[in-house]
C-alpha cells in the first residue's frame, strides 16, 4: 500500500489525539483546517480510515492502528530532536513535525531502539508502543544501553562509543575497544571491569557511560 501523504498523516494524528487520547467524539473540519473534497481527506476516506459526518470528521476503527503509529512517530521524532540532537523549544517541535514523516516502517523501530524504547514524549505524553517495544519487553532487555546498565556477567556487542572527549575515545579505540567487538562485563563496582577478547580493562563510570552495548537477541 502506498504511503499516506504528510498532510493526511497530520490529520490522522490530530484526530487520534483529540478522540483517543482526548474526550472528543470527532473533530470539526474547520479545526483541522480541511474542507470536504480536499486531497488529503479523499485519500483517508479512500482507505476507510476516517468518515465525514456533517461538519465533523470521525476516526474509524480501521484507521486507528495507522493513526496510533503516526502519533508514535511524531513523539519519537520529538525525543530524537530534543534528547539526542539537543534542539529545544519551538525549533525542536518544528523539526520534529518535519522529521516524523520520514520515520516509516523500519526507521521508527531503529530509532525507538536507539532511544531505548521511550514511553513518553518530552512533553510528558505517552508514546504508543510499537512491536519493537513489545518484543523488548518480552525479552526483558531493551536494545542498546550504556555499559552502566549492564549487570555483572552480562555480555553484548559494543554498539558505539559516545565521544564527549576525543582523547579518551582514542585511548579506548587504540586498546581495541571498538564497535563490533564482543564485550563481557565482569564487575561494576567500585569500577567497571570488562573483557574484550582475552584482555581485561577497568574504567570508571564516566567512561563506562559512554560505551554503548547492544544486548544480544535471545
Amino acid at each position, binding site marked *: 500500500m502506498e504511503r499516506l501523504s504528510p498532510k493526511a498523516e497530520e490529520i490522522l494524528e490530530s484526530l487520534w489525539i483529540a478522540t483517543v487520547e482526548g474526550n472528543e467524539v470527532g473533530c470539526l473540519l474547520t479545526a483541522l483546517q480541511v474542507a470536504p473534497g480536499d486531497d488529503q481527506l479523499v485519500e483517508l476516506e479512500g482507505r476507510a480510515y476516517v468518515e465525514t459526518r456533517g461538519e465533523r470528521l470521525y476516526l474509524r476503527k480501521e484507521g486507528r492502528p495507522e493513526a496510533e503509529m503516526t502519533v508514535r512517530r511524531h513523539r519519537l521524532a520529538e525525543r530524537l530532536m530534543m534528547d539526542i540532537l539537543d534542539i529545544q523549544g519551538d525549533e525542536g517541535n518544528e523539526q520534529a513535525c518535519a522529521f516524523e514523516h520520514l520515520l516509516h516502517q523500519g526507521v521508527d523501530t531503529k530509532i525507538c531502539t536507539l532511544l531505548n524504547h521511550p514511553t513518553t514524549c518530552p512533553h510528558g505524553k505517552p508514546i504508543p508502543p510499537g512491536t519493537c517495544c513489545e518484543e523488548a519487553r518480552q525479552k526483558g532487555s531493551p536494545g542498546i544501553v550504556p555499559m552502566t546498565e549492564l549487570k555483572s556477567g552480562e555480555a553484548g556487542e559494543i554498539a558505539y562509543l559516545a565521544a564527549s572527549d576525543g582523547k579518551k575515545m582514542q585511548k579506548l579505540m*587504540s586498546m581495541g575497544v571498538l564497535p563490533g567487538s564482543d564485550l563481557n562485563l565482569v564487575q561494576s563496582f567500585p569500577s567497571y571491569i570488562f573483557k574484550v577478547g582475552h584482555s*581485561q580493562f*577497568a574504567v570508571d563510570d564516566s567512561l563506562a557511560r559512554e560505551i554503548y552495548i547492544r544486548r544480544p537477541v535471545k
Partner: protein
Amino acid sequence: MSEQQQPQPKVVLVGNPNVGKSVLFNVLTGAYTTVSNYPGTSVEVSRGHCEIDDVNYEILDTPGMYSIMPITEEERVARQILLEETPHAVLHVVDARNLDRMLPMTLQLIEAGLPIILVVNILDEAKRLGMQIDLKKLQKNIGVPVIGTVMKRRQGLSELQQAISAYASVPHKPFIYGSDLERDIVRMAALLKGDYRFSNRATSLLLFQKDNEVENLVEASESAEDLSQLQDVIRDVIFERRADLHLQISLERKSISKRMLEDVVTQVEQTEEPFAEKLSRWAMNPWSGTPILLLVIYFGLYQFVGGFGAGTLVDFIEGSIFEEYINPPVVDYLRTHVSADWLFELLAGEYGLWTLGIRYAVALILPIVGTFFLIFSLLEDTGYFPRLALLVDRIFKRIGLSGRAVIPMVLGFGCATMATMVTRTLETTRERIIATALLALAIPCSAQLGVILGLLSEVPGALSVWMVVMLLVFLLVGFLASKVMPGEHPVFYMELPPMRLPQFRNVAVKTMTRMQSYFLEILPLFLFASFILWGLKMLGALEGIVGALAPVVRAIGLPVEATSAFVFGFFRRDFGAAGLYDLQSNGLLTPTQLTVAAVTLTLFVPCIAQFLMMKKERGFRVSLSIFMFVSVLAFSCGWALNKFLLSTGLLL
C-alpha cells in the same frame, strides 16, 4: 676498522604494555632492565647491546604504547624514538592472546614505512587458552617477518636473531582504506615535500588526527607556501570528517587486521577457570579486596619492612656489624692518623661523613629500602597493583586523583623521590600537582617509616594516633586540593594484565635495580648533607639555625633538643626521624612529645632530593609553593595535635 666507523645498527622494541618487551630486551642484551607488570612504570628508554653473527647491534627498549599516535607521556617517549632514530629493524612485540587487538598497531607501523619484524610472544599462554596460531600464514598475509616466541623461556630466540640479522627492508604494498579516506590521504601525501621518518601516508593520517609533534615537524620542514596549502587541506579534511574520523580509521584498521587473521587463529573452547583468574576476581571485589589489601599492608609493610627490615636487619647491620666490628677500628685509625681536629670531625665526628653519612646510608636506610623494594617488586610482578588501582579509584577521585595514582603513592612509601618522578605518568597537570603535594606532605618514605614505626611501637597508642592523623591529613588536603585546583578532572581507564605467579628472576632484578639506583642516588646526598652539617657546625651556624627554629619547636611542645632533628629533616627526611630515634633512646621525650614530633616530622618538608625532583618535574614556582604550604601545615598540625593530646590526656 671499518666496523667502528659505521654507525652501529639499531634495533628498537615497541609494543603495548605487558607484552614482554623488557623480557625480550633482557634476553637479547643479557642486561637487566626492570620488568614490570604494571602499565606505566617504565618511562625511560633502556639501551643495551647484542651481538648477532659478529655484528654488534644497539637495542632500544621503549615504554609501552598502544598506537603510533601518542596520548600519554610514555607513548610520547616511545614515539619520539621512532621519529628520531633510523633503526635497522623495529620489533613489534605482541601478546599472542590478543593478536587481533594488537595487529592494528602493526599495520600502523608498517604503514609508517618502518622495518618491522612482528614478534608474537607469550605463545605458551595462548596455547593454554586453547588458541592455535598459524604464524606462517600470518607472515604471508601481512608481508613482514613473523616470529613466534616464548621469551621468558628463550623459545624462538635464535629464529629472532636470524630474522634481525637477515632483515632487509622491502617496500610494502600499502593497506587500502575506504575510497573516501584514500582520496584524502593521496591528496595530502602528494603535498608533503619534506623528508620525514614516517611515510607520507602515515604522516598524512597523523596530521588529520591533529598530532601536535608531527604538525611541528611538518611546519619545520615545509616551505611557507606549501605549508599554507597543506594546512588548508588538513582543515578541510578535519572539518569534513569531524564526526568520525578517528573511529573510521580505527575500524578500517580493525577490519584489515581481521582479514589478515582469517584462518590464522583457531580457538578451542575452554571451560575451567584457572586459579589466577579467581585470585584476580577476589582482588578486584571490594569485599574480598579490602581484606587482601590489609593483609598485604600488615604482612608486607608492617611485618616484613617494619619488623624484619627496620628491626632485625638494622639491628644486625647497625648494632652488630657496624658498632662492634667496623666503627671502633675505623674511628681508632682516624684518631691516631688524623691530627687536625676539623678533619677528624669531618670524617668521624658527630656529623662526620663516615659516622653520619655512610653509617646511616648503609646500616639504617639500605636494609629498610631494600626490603620495601623487594615487596614492591614482588607485588608488581603478580599484577596486583592495577587491581588495587581500580579498587581505590572511587576514593582517589574524591582527592582529585584517579586510581592510576596509586602507583606513585605506594612507591612513595618506598622512596618519595622516585615516586615524584613517576607522577609524570599521570594524565593531567592537575593530578600531577596534587599527587606531588601529597607525596611531599603525608606519605612517609620507607626509611622514615621504618624509623618511625620502630619509635612509635614502643609507646602504646602512639602508632594509631600517628596513623589516624596521617590518613586524615592525606584525605583532607587531597579533598580540599581537588576542590581548589582548577583543571580537568581525571578519568580512569586501565588495562588489567593477567595475574601471575611472581617470577624469581624478575623480582630479583627489579629489586636490585631499584636498590642500586636508590643507593647511587642517596649516598652522594648523604655525604653532601653530612658535609653541609659539618660545615655549619664548624662555622657555628648550626646553633644559629637551631636557635632560630627552636621557638617554633617549643611552640609545638617539644624539647629544644628536637630542633636538630628538624634541621636534619631538611637534608633527608629519614635523618630527622633517625635524630628522633637518638632522642628517644636517651629518654628525652614523653609519649605525647614523641607522637607530636613524629607527626610533624612526617608531614614536614621533603628531603633535599625530593625537592630537587619536584623542581625538575613541576617547575620552581609550584614546588616552592608546595614547600611553603607543607612546612606551615606540618607545624600547625603539630601544634594542634599537641594541644589536643595534652587536653585529652590520650597518651600520657
